[in-house]
């Protein structure tokens, strides 16, 4: 069945460098530096990436960072909690806009 997303396309990510190698190299250098051990560990950064991957709902990122989290030593329990953080922030972001709803409703109601 034809779909927009193909798992094997993840392996062709580097093809994006063909259109503009200079920008690609700058992006990859930055990407590598971001995920290197720093004030946060590589394991912590992979968990953050997994949470963000779920926020942006990128199947390639979810695939890559599920594997990365496991290979950095995180457990499925920790990864599940990271996804719940995504869920809480996304849900909270919707809910907090309810204040706008209440403000508008208050303003126009008798």
């Amino acid at each position: 069945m034809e779909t927009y997303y193909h798992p094997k396309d993840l392996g062709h990510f580097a093809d994006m460098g063909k259109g503009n190698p200079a920008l690609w190299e700058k992006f990859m250098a930055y990407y590598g530096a971001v995920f290197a051990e720093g004030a946060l560990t590589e394991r912590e950064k992979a968990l953050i990436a997994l949470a963000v991957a779920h926020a942006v709902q990128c199947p390639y990122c979810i695939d890559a960072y599920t594997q990365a989290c496991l290979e950095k030593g995180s457990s499925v329990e920790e990864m599940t909690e990271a996804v719940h953080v995504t869920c809480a922030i996304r849900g909270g972001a919707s809910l907090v806009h309810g204040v706008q709803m209440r403000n508008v409703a208050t303003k126009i109601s008798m």
Partner: protein
Amino acid sequence: MPPPTRSLKARGSALAAPGEQVRLLESPNGQPRFDAMLAGARLAPLRATGITVFQINVGKLCNQTCGHCHVDAGPDRAEVMTQATAEACMAALARTDIPAVDITGGAPELNPAFRYLVEESRRLGRRVMDRCNLSVLLLPSQGDLGGFLARHRVEIVASLPSVVPSQTDAQRGAGVFDKSLQALRVLNGLGYGCDGSGLVLNLVTNPVGAFLPPAQPSQEAHFRQRLAHEHGIVFNNLYTITNMPISRFLEFLIRSGNYEGYMERLVNAFNPVAAAGVMCRYTLSVGWDGRLYDCDFNQMLDLTLAHGAPAHIRDFDPSVLHARRVVTGNHCYGCTAGSGSSCGGATA
């Protein structure tokens, strides 16, 4: 990864035959052959650099049936080393100055010749390692095992894939995590892993699935913190070991649709530094029947020493073995991926 309850052999699986595993691993799948990668790293043909570890696999009998076992060991396996072969091993060892003896299985402690091998190796002044599944220490027949190991200053290399109970049980069987902790408390009680005791307790973790192990130093810190704080357990070192795509782990890979992806992961992570430090270059592996191999993985694939090296312990000749050419295949990617993998953990 729910572990099977019986060995491949007992289930009559085609993968029980080493030849079938080799056929699969060596079938062209678009990936470069391991030997070509070795040549690219200027390591072909791979040669031993000496022998510092004399590894004896005393057989396939085990009290567990772990899902990733490269030996296809289990309670239903009957292949065990005889006393005569054990004596041949010790006679060969005595002719050398190989400093370390590494005893593995199965659960090596269940072999009647195990204690002879320990006592004789120690009498010869060698460091002895016991690759222990931990739960064996709790068997009624092994009540004095911990004391025996401590008395002979045997270094224990114990399997504990995860500090998360469900993860350990998923790989090693229901209830194994709790048994493992119980056994670790027995060992700590004997002084194993405790500062100043000189009794070494090292842990081994294999990934619970089709992915590479974490970096060894960070995972060791993670295990140390969790085991100490949550269970009051101490240990010396943690070894991270990559799952080899053979035997029951190969079965898991195929059954779960992960075989191609896992092999691709191993190939893409080929590390020339890890390849230069593979354990077959300094290990001699002896099988339960006395046959000789470059490593325990080759042993399980029936890949005996070749290229003119003796193939049985009765023909042991250290002068030939020290610089022998190593037998390699595509399964060897398991030892060269990422930070590398060996019986002593990461290599690069």
